[in-house]
């Protein structure tokens, strides 16, 4: 990481915070890392059971954000106070010793669970103090085999709660990807017998539209950040190639023309470029191409590089844009790259196969699939520290959990 770049960015952050609220603690950095802010939650008023549950979920959210240390109020720089009334938390954040709140927020529950109330408060704190997108209200989708040979698509909260199966295809349903909202999914399913691409405008309905069912392979559906286009891989013209579909009209633009395999497209955050995999030079490598068509550009050189995902947001231009899989020795590891500097980093380094990484909207966390002894489970990685934790061990009952994707 370019330390000076991050330094000046964080200085700017600090300066902005100071203008906005003179008593807000600023993020400082030590050894090139943003230092965590110490935060505490004082017991909330209102119904004790509800207050305790919301405080407990909020504390976990703040820890999972990796921007904060959670501790006793006596030692904290920031203190959350609040009162629960029915389905609402009236929460506020204070600097220690200050009577002036840094932020106040009424968090209204989604009516499904109280967890959503805490998630709102957590994201509000991250947005105001760190000035980063929060991840507490995000969802994660993935494919799981329940110990058999078929795979179905599931959606859950980012912490594993509110798990829901969204397909009932009784075949292979794989590689789900989110649209720009937290409702729309694109995925590949063999429910007709053939590999086709389906869109679910609202995953809670389970209603899927088949959007690509051409002869041969239809896969890799990736919805553009504006939700109007979908990158996809089709072999209808005689070879697996990269296309972009206009979702309103269904018209296709062919982007590549090779004799080898293209796969695994993802979009740049501004929707102008697509990163994808091609094995035209032997083993698979990463390429970037203008989304409207044009000359593609190879960005990795050597080894086996696959399954890229482009960070939707970044704290600083010196942090990684892409995460992807690289074969290192006999194992797959998750790596990252900064497209401006070309700097590559290895983010996992253990005896497991670490595959299928995708970014959280904070540009800091990555969800990926780790295989140990041929059993795949989902892990969350902090790309700043390299620390990875299992998302939720209870997911193991779903068998192998693969191809996760984090909502934007």
């Amino acid at each position: 990481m370019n330390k000076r770049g991050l330094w000046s960015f964080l200085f700017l952050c600090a300066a902005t915070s100071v203008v906005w609220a003179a008593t807000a603690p600023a993020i400082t950095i030590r050894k090139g890392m943003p230092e965590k802010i110490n935060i505490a939650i004082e017991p909330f008023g209102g119904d004790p059971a509800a207050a305790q549950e919301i405080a407990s979920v909020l504390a976990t959210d703040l820890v999972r954000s990796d921007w904060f240390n959670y501790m006793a109020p006596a030692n904290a720089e920031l203190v959350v106070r609040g009162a629960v009334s029915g389905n609402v938390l009236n929460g506020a954040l204070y600097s220690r010793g200050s009577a002036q709140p840094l932020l106040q927020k009424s968090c209204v529950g989604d009516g499904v669970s109280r967890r959503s109330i805490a998630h709102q408060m957590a994201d509000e704190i991250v947005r105001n103090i760190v000035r980063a997108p929060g991840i507490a209200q995000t969802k994660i989708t993935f494919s799981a085999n329940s110990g058999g040979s078929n795979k179905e698509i599931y959606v859950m909260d980012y912490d594993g709660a509110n798990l829901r199966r969204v397909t009932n295809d009784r075949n292979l349903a794989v590689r789900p990807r989110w649209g720009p909202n937290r409702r729309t999914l694109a995925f590949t399913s063999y429910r007709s017998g053939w590999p086709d691409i389906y869109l679910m405008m609202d995953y809670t309905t389970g209603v899927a539209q088949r959007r690509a069912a051409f002869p041969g392979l239809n896969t890799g559906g990736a919805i553009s950040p504006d939700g109007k286009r979908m990158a996809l891989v089709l072999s209808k013209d005689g070879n697996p190639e990269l296309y972009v579909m206009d979702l309103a009209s269904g018209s296709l633009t062919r982007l590549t023309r090779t004799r080898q395999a293209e796969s695994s497209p993802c979009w740049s955050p501004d929707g102008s470029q697509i990163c994808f995999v091609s094995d035209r030079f032997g083993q698979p490598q990463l390429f970037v191409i203008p989304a409207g068509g044009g000359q593609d550009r190879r960005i990795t050189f050597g080894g086996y590089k696959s399954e890229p995902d482009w960070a939707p947001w970044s704290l600083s231009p010196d942090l990684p844009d892409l995460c992807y899989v690289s074969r290192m020795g006999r194992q797959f590891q998750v790596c990252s790259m900064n497209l401006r500097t070309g700097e590559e980093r290895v983010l996992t380094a253990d005896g497991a196969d670490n595959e299928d990484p995708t970014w959280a909207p904070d540009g800091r966390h990555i969800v990926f699939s780790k295989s140990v002894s041929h059993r795949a489970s989902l892990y969350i990685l902090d790309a700043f520290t390299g620390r990875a934790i299992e998302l939720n061990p209870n997911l193991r009952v779903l068998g192998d959990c693969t191809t996760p994707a984090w909502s934007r």
Partner: protein
Amino acid sequence: MKTRLMMKMMALSLAALVGGSMVGCKKKSSAIPGPGPGTEIGAVPAVPVEPGGLPPRIGTPGERYQPPRLAADTVYFAFDSAVINPSERPKLDDMAAYMRENPGQIITVEGHCDERGTAEYNRALGERRALACREYLMGAGIDGNKLQTISYGKDRPADPGHGEEAWAKNRRGEFIITSR
């Protein structure tokens, strides 16, 4: 029978999961919530295929009919390669002979990979393997309209093992009779 028992146990543990600690909301369901089978709307717009492209789909590839002669003609590939190895040509030549003897049949070529590639890239590589078999057969004079392709990537291994022996069996192109 074994599988059914496993599924039952799985369902029980799923019920425990949903009712238990992981889902923080009310205990109201004995299984993970989800839709019924095959909920689907809308039609696929017709987009023409470029010259040299694949023929329209026929049949359902999940219904596999593979007589022993076709099973014996399964073509194997090197790691991360879709190139037809010279050792595999006699099998493809036999498939060409079979298709000449049975001109009414449509053949589906299934492309498969071993577990050592990433899932989505392997789906494209499996398709390349199926297409390589199709292209060889077309070079031998077979009508391309009678050859369709499907890729399963690494999702349908022939051998569930994890060593080189299993991998070698899984990197393959298989021939299935789709319509007789």
